[in-house]
């Protein structure tokens, strides 16, 4: 057992857990934040993607104790129903989700992708390449790609407007 402490969606949390506890299990089962999902056992599907210290990682392939001391953000931490993150809003606007199960990872990967490339710098080929680690079975990706492109372009407009 180890004491795991982290800042989770802006709030400092701490629990004693078995060392084998995965970060995704800590988030879902210990902290009750069920917006992060588990869709495979081999680190491929990406439904579990969260941000650790600002970077997208697969929460099914990291121990909770590895993230102790880190800043962790999940889907619940980037926006809310009354104040959607632009990527969340774009997924709705462009029908970038159907069953919703892969959506947490898709959105968190999209936010990370826009952060790294810079808003407005994503084209379709880059987005498809960047989504290598996120599997969706419903949408055929068409509208996910569209949503991410739209969010990226919109965020570029927002940051321009702010300048």
């Amino acid at each position, binding site marked *: 057992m180890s004491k795991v402490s982290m800042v989770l969606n802006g709030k400092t949390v701490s629990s004693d857990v*078995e060392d*084998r506890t995965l970060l995704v299990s800590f988030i*879902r089962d210990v902290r*009750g*934040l*069920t*917006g*992060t*999902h*588990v*869709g*495979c*056992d*081999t680190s*491929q*599907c990406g*439904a579990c993607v969260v941000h650790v210290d600002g970077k997208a990682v697969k929460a099914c392939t990291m121990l909770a104790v590895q993230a102790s001391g880190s800043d962790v953000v*999940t*889907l*619940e931490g980037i*926006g*809310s*129903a009354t104040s*959607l993150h632009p990527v*969340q*809003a774009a*997924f*709705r*606007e462009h*029908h970038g*989700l*159907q*069953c*919703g*199960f*892969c*959506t*947490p990872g898709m*959105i968190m990967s999209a936010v990370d992708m826009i952060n790294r490339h810079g808003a407005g710098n994503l084209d*379709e080929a880059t*987005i*498809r*390449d960047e*989504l*290598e680690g*996120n*599997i*969706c*079975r*419903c*949408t*055929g*990706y*068409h*509208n*996910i*790609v*569209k949503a991410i492109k739209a969010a990226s372009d919109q965020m570029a407009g927002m940051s321009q407007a702010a300048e």
Partner: protein
Amino acid sequence: MAIEGIGARALRKEDKRFITGKGQYTDDMVLPGMGHAAFVRSPHAHAKVIGIDASAALSMPGVDAVLTGDQLVGDGIGNLICGWMIHSKDGTPMKMGGWRALEPEVVRHVGQAIAVVVADTPAEARDAADAVVVDYEELPAVVDAVAALEPGAPQIHPEAEGNLIYDWEIGDEAAVNAAFASAAHVTKMEIRNNRLVPNPMEPRAALASYNDAEEHHTLYTTSQNPHVARLVLSAFYNVAPEHKLRVIAPDVGGGFGSKIYIYPEEMVCLWASKRVGRPVKWVSDRTEAFLTDAHGRDHVSEAELALDADNRITGLRVKTIANLGAYMSLFSSSVPTYLYATLLSGQYNIPAIHANVKTVYTNTTAVDAYRGAGRPEATYLVERMMETAAREVGLSPADFRRKNFVREFPHQTPVIMCYDAGDYDATLDAALQAADYAGFAARKAEAASRGKLRGIGLSCYIEACGIAPSAAVGSLGAGVGLWESAEVRVNPVGTVEVLTGSHSHGQGHETTFAQLISERFGLDSDAVSIVHGDTDKVQFGMGTYGSRSGAVGMSAIVKALDKVEAKAKKIAAHLMEAAEGDIQIEGGELKVAGTDKKLSFTEVALAAYTAHNLPEGMEPGLKEGAFYDPTNFTFPAGTYVCEVEIDPETGQTEIVSFVAADDFGKVINPMIVEGQVHGGLVQGIGQALLENAAYDENGQLLTASYMDYTMPRADDVPSFNLSTHETLCPGNPLGMKGCGEAGAIGSPPAVINAITDALGSNDLTMPATPEKVWQLCQGAVKQAAE
């Protein structure tokens, strides 16, 4: 928010919860004191169970119980069943082998459950399951359906001699023989339809609880049809009587058919929760899903097409062997028969068709309906034959199809189906134009200059949806009727709840169904809630599969709305002292035509519930229910055009363009319909290029994770060019046909026809992996050199 009725691209009401992490899937449910189940599974494809030693497991931390098949059978839990009776051509009923939720005697596929451990945590349950020692005596296994029929093959079930489940036929064999006897040209092919794993991103899960004081069970589960689950669990599996069993399918993360069926694990959780006296949760991991979720397809067929001297089709002869796996899953028997062979006429006038289908047990995971179910197999066969025949007789594939199109409706095919409406020229024309078919030769030449092989392929598909008229399917062997129910509850304040027996697991029913109410009453969709997925809330329903929720589920809602509207108009007429026939509903108000008298929908609803002043003899309230039983199948159809470019050095196929022109009848929400097509296309492209469930000769599944089973990813597929072309379905009030499966049905032959066009070789099976394509490229290069 604006009023968004029929035809509006309304954004989805359900999205807000999914994009903010507030969805409620089965694995998100927590009940006080719940334990966790882990299954002990067979590592062998075929073996006798000699003994089970649970002593070590029982002494491990957190373990409540280790339960086995003997206990399950002892408690009177029934065998899993197949609910659709098929008779062989000699009149004998299909041979169904026994399937126990925990197998005490003989395991028949890798991953079959033998025992379950219930413990405090998932990890403790898994630790203990690993410590259960099972003694097996291995038996020889067979995984290939053709091999399973050969003399001397391992015998899988005592009930099915030679592993043959049924030997079924449809059509007029003598007429087909006559057509072939006088044929000017015969096209003959062996066609394989590869085995697929459905892979909804949410794995199956169950959370069962039992209240001993009430003798009442509750099951949260990943189901496409919770009412059917309850019916089967009660009536056949003897878990609990229906009124003592509540089944809830909350948010469900995709199904594609695989969540229609009742599986051993869900049953075992229900039974175990009563046995151990605490709620029991089980969540499948992905490898368990590969090993136990019903697979799809897996056909081998011989097909022959007869043409006359004018290249008109005169006959089609098909012999198919279908692999049903180790057990007959819930609807497995219907897939290679009435969902397959009845579609072998395609979009074409074919005067004579005969099909013979043998289904076979093998030591593999059970096979049942997967998106399209039978119709992709039929479409692949017909459209590969059409393309090949066109090449053989030297006609353009488009012209050959056009020559044989059905153009008069209704059209009775020789294989039961009666097509009610369609315009196949319209979708073909639209697709060819969108794909710039005429400009292909120039694109091919340009690709060749870059060392790439370019090809184009067509697929003109038809499917039968809106499953289905109850009397018709009953006469064909179905154990249930396939109607749908709806209840429309107008609340006293004028908001509306619609209870439906359909189930949404990605299809967006909460939005599309609400559009019907907005259209009818002029209400904002925020004033409408769609309620589904809970047997305590909705009286009964048949669930969502076979692209039926629009054509059947929404038709039931329309019928209920008709009744609500009629009653509301009566009340309004009474209150405004007008004639009932003069009442019009517009913009959320009931108006007296030609006057300025009006009442808001809310006022009428309130009047219905206060009941202070209702027409003489009228019951209070404004709530109506309806059942809708379809009059016919519906027949969505369309043309898909795929264009590929192949790298001959690696065999890599790139889809450079994909066009879909569909006729779905009336479209309620184009945005959602397009999404359904996108997803279906990628599943079909996945089947054509990437996906294959492969077994080794010992029955080990070689593709039991995403490390080996190739799921389509974003960089495997293109964006799509879609259009819809409406002919209304005359059989239901909205004229809808259904759109959920078309993409998966129509796309595989378009892809393979394009690749074989590029290669100039027809010898290609799905999936067209880079290696297979590279091998054919070697042949092409060699031929060119000779």
